[in-house]
């Protein structure tokens, strides 16, 4: 692509770009040959283009840059760019001043505060939008499916103007017998107004999964009759339900001092509470930093690698989250009970559990479109604060307490299930990697903002393009499809033994190993599958012809 064609949309950026262009820059990437070319800075991209034909260019979104380091050897400066997708590259820039300018410009451009200056607001799609992703997964459409299965739920507009719960969407599914006034009262009893709403309806036995914020019982054990009424309304007569609290009992106890708490046995006699151990955001962030550090350690010591891997606790988090999701699924499918899931806010570990449980229980969530719907419902509309959580990744030095790889852990868990059931998912690993990349830096508006109210203010559907518009095109779908897929209507129970859970190499070792051999083997697999399909089609069409001939000509019939 010709650089001159790129339009610098906004004047603000021009002031930040001290040196827009440097010649003779050398790009170093692991496992790839070095490239020499011209480095250009635009408002949103760092671009390296070599003048030779057929040489790959580097196009890097500034928002993908997590940290930047400078090094000088004589007058030759180098900058080391560490990206949110965990890639690390080095650029050798001749001239000290140029190097300093580039480095400070990139630093400024990659840490812009204002959301409205982000690339999605400037990006114009160069592809034909077949289906506008912003309209693909509207709550009212999803509710129509539910209505076809049960009449026990209704769509409430109580949160129409986000006044009851800023992180909930304007439309939520609640028990039919509970009116909006009750919902308002319950909202004041739940963290951030997150009253229990429907997350999943298990068609097989009519059991449901709900999610909420923690109840605000406080130290003196405040109770709320409406809250009890709401969740009891989801129980069948004589049946008990399970409350899965994603925190340990200790953490839940401590939450009381800050006004939070959990459902007591006395006030919720029809519910059995189970505490699990999913870590909180800042612990997860620390884990990510340590894990990535371990993966980038090029030392040859096995002991060091294993002890660093252990110390990161990443795999422990994966195991805990998966186990909790399996437990929720088990309660619903095996015990035939309804489930309420919450942690503290109900925007992080809660969503990990409810979304993974649906992957296990509901075959529809294992299709490409179904998975998009799941991410849309259980993450975007459910109010996971993507902007805060994904502002920085594993390399950044300025740590705010809000960053956490909650969504990445969810994707990792999905990958683990995919590894164990490689034929049951319509999408391949590359779809998960794509979502990881776009959650952290993207030309699309899908993952911008925090919570439904915050997102509404940004007018994303009007001003940005949806990631789903890009994904739901034939050529992209083909790239993301799992060639082994064969629809499987059953519940899939993954193994959560440590021996069964692997490090997600496709993300964490992606840039640290040569994937050539693995890619070639994958191609070979695709080839075998396609060849088989081709033969099968031929056989089928011949059979049809034969059958036709037989009916037309009785002489040909076999005796």
């Amino acid at each position, binding site marked *: 692509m010709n650089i001159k064609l790129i339009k610098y949309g906004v004047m603000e950026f021009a002031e930040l770009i001290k040196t827009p262009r440097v010649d003779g820059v050398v790009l170093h990437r692991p496992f790839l040959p070095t490239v020499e070319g011209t480095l250009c800075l635009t408002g949103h991209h760092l671009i390296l283009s070599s003048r030779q034909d057929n040489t790959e260019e580097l196009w890097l979104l500034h928002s993908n840059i997590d940290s930047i380091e400078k090094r000088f050897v004589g007058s030759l400066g180098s900058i080391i760019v560490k990206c949110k997708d965990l890639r690390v590259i080095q650029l050798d820039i001749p001239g000290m001043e140029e190097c300093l300018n580039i480095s400070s410009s990139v630093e400024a451009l990659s840490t812009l505060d204002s959301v409205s200056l982000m690339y999605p607001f400037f990006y114009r799609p160069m592809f034909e939008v077949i289906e506008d992703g912003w309209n693909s997964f509207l709550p009212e459409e999803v509710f129509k499916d539910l209505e076809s299965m049960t009449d026990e739920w209704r769509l409430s507009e109580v949160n129409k103007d986000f006044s009851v719960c800023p992180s909930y969407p304007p439309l939520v599914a609640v028990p039919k017998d509970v009116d909006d006034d009750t919902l308002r009262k319950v909202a004041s009893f739940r963290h951030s107004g997150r009253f229990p709403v429907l997350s999943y309806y298990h068609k097989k036995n009519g059991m449901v999964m709900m999610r909420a914020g923690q109840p605000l019982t406080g130290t003196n054990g405040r109770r709320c009759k409406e809250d009890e009424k709401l969740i009891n309304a989801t129980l069948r007569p004589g049946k008990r339900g399970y409350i899965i609290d994603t925190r340990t009992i200790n953490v839940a106890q401590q939450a009381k001092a800050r006004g939070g708490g959990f459902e007591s046995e006395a006030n919720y006699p029809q519910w059995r509470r*189970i505490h699990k151990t999913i870590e909180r955001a800042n612990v997860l962030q620390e884990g990510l930093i340590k894990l990535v550090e371990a*993966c980038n350690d*090029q030392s*040859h*010591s*096995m*002991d060091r*690698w*294993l*002890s660093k*891997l*252990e110390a990161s*606790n990443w*795999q*422990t988090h994966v195991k805990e989250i998966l186990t*909790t999701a*399996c*437990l929720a699924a*088990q*309660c619903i499918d*095996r015990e035939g009970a309804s489930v309420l899931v919450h942690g503290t806010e109900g925007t992080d570990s809660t969503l990990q559990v409810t979304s993974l449980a649906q992957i296990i229980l509901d075959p529809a969530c294992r299709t490409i479109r179904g998975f998009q719907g799941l991410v849309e419902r259980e993450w975007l509309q459910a109010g996971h604060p993507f902007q805060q959580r994904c502002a920085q990744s594993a390399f950044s030095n300025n740590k705010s307490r809000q960053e956490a790889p909650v969504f990445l852990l969810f994707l990792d868990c999905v990958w683990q299930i995919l590894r*164990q*059931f*490689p*034929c049951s998912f319509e999408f391949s690993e590359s779809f998960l990697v794509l979502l990881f990349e776009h959650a952290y830096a993207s030309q699309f508006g899908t993952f911008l903002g925090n919570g439904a109210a915050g997102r509404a203010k940004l007018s994303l559907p009007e001003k940005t393009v949806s990631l789903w518009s890009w994904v739901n095109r034939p050529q992209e779908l083909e790239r993301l499809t799992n060639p*082994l897929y064969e629809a*499987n209507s*059953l519940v*899939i*129970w*993954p*193994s*959560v*033994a*440590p*021996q*069964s*859970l*692997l490090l997600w190499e496709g993300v964490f*070792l992606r840039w*640290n*190993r*040569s994937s050539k*051999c693995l890619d*070639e*083997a994958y191609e*070979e*697999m695709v080839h*075998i*599958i396609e060849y*088989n399909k081709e*033969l*099968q089609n*031929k*056989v089928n069409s*011949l*059979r049809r012809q*034969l059958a036709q001939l037989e009916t037309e000509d009785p002489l*040909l019939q*076999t005796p």
Partner: protein
Amino acid sequence: TNGTLYLTATHLIFVESSAKNSTSILHHHIASVEKLSLTTTGCPLVIQCRNFRLVHFVVQRERDCHDIYSSLLLSYEELYAFSYNPKQNDQQREEGWQLIDLGAEFERMGVPCDQWQLTDVNRDYKVCETYPRDLYVPITASKPIIVGSSKFRSKGRFPVLTYFYQEKKAAVCRCSQPLSGFSARCLEDESLLQAISKANHNCRFVYVMDTRPKLNALANRAAGKGYENEDNYSNIRFQFVGIENIHVMRTSLQKLMEVVGTRSLSMSDYLVGLESSGWLRHIKAVVDAAIFLTKAVTLEGASVLVHCSDGWDRTAQVCSLGALLMDPYYRTIKGFMVLIEKDWISFGHKFADRCDQLDGDPKEVSPIFTQFLECVWQLSEQFPQAFEFSEWFLLQIHEHVHSCQYGNFLGNNQRQREELQLRERTHSLWAFLMSDKENYLNPFYSPAYAESHPVLAPSTLPYHFKFWRNMYHQFDRSMHPRQSILKTILTLRENSRKYIPELSVCLCYPEATESTDTERTVEGSSGSESRKQSYGELEGTYNSELAKEEPAVVSLEFGVARMTC
């Protein structure tokens, strides 16, 4: 699961009362039997197998339990191989044994040639009891030199050729440690090394790889053994590579199995245990050594002499793995058999002792060969297209190294095998595996890949080494992926093969259709049915509070128990 336990002369068989399933365990596979204290349901009996199966029985009456226990502890004088009869006649049996011909293998490498010859010095096992009869040495090495050198080498295992890299005329030789002590030297041994060096015109020196850690080699000097002094040997480059000894390896695997055998193991304990067992560190050390060997031979064109203490454990690992990296032939099914036959069986890896075939010295038992198979598996993970065989082939070989069902791995060396008349009295595993070849093929194997990548250059960064779940938990099916890519692809390939004749049938003789039949087989084997059944297998529980008491009287623990609960 309830059921009946049968003891036969060769197997222990458990048949479920529903008669749907049965489990049989070869006596040779049983590593240990343990009787636990009496419980309310009966007397528990825990049997651990060499192929990493762990079975847990509860026998109602204590006396019965004791009887089983004591009869299992009996040593079976007759090895299974002598009674195993796969309904073959003598001719077929003989053909089976002729499948692998090491003479032909050396010919394939280009030996004998103008620099290397076959020597008859060990025709009657007079010079070295643990070597094969046929050995290849440099042309210039006379008999007195060989005999003199053998007296200076532990167990008489003097330097001989094991692999010849034709492209650079570089040789891989193997031997045991020299009896050098602190100062002893042997002119014949020095001449033999000189002869090895001279046989290669491409390189002025020869590498001597001592595969032991330096400390071990130093300690051996006090016992009159040791390593080559660079001052005494002209043109050698001496190198330690630091693979630990059989005792360290045995303990390491024990620790590993202890860790992974823990019930409701936490991720942290698993990773800490994986590290402290040192197992993957040892695996990496072997691969690192093989890479050193490969680089010396293929890049520098240097000949290499490999040894450890006796030259039948670490030396076998490094020589065979190195050859596998250098020569694509060894990455085929037939070639891999040849490699094992050459570097392990014929050069006297002590299978009987290491695999504890006849209740020998427990200190001699060590998973050296298992490590070799694991190294190959680790490489196949990095190079999915480089190997003609799949993981199942490695698992099957491992199974039969311990099963004693075939004669190949019985005894400690060729001489013993001849004395046992194995070729006349038992069958060869290689023939059986060859007849079953279809099952072991790697669908991703590409001969073109082998051609374009004759030498493999694996990365040995630590994260490339993984725990081999399918080996160490091969019977714990609940831990395996519920759907196997390998199985699915193999089924597809099988289907494709079936379509082709049908296509030609349809095209040529439209009246002779058996399409309905074919269709049935195709769909029956498409895997969708069988796969669906297997989903139900895991109904393990993710929370102890939800666990229900199992009313079983006899329960098979781990995978099997979950499978049937």
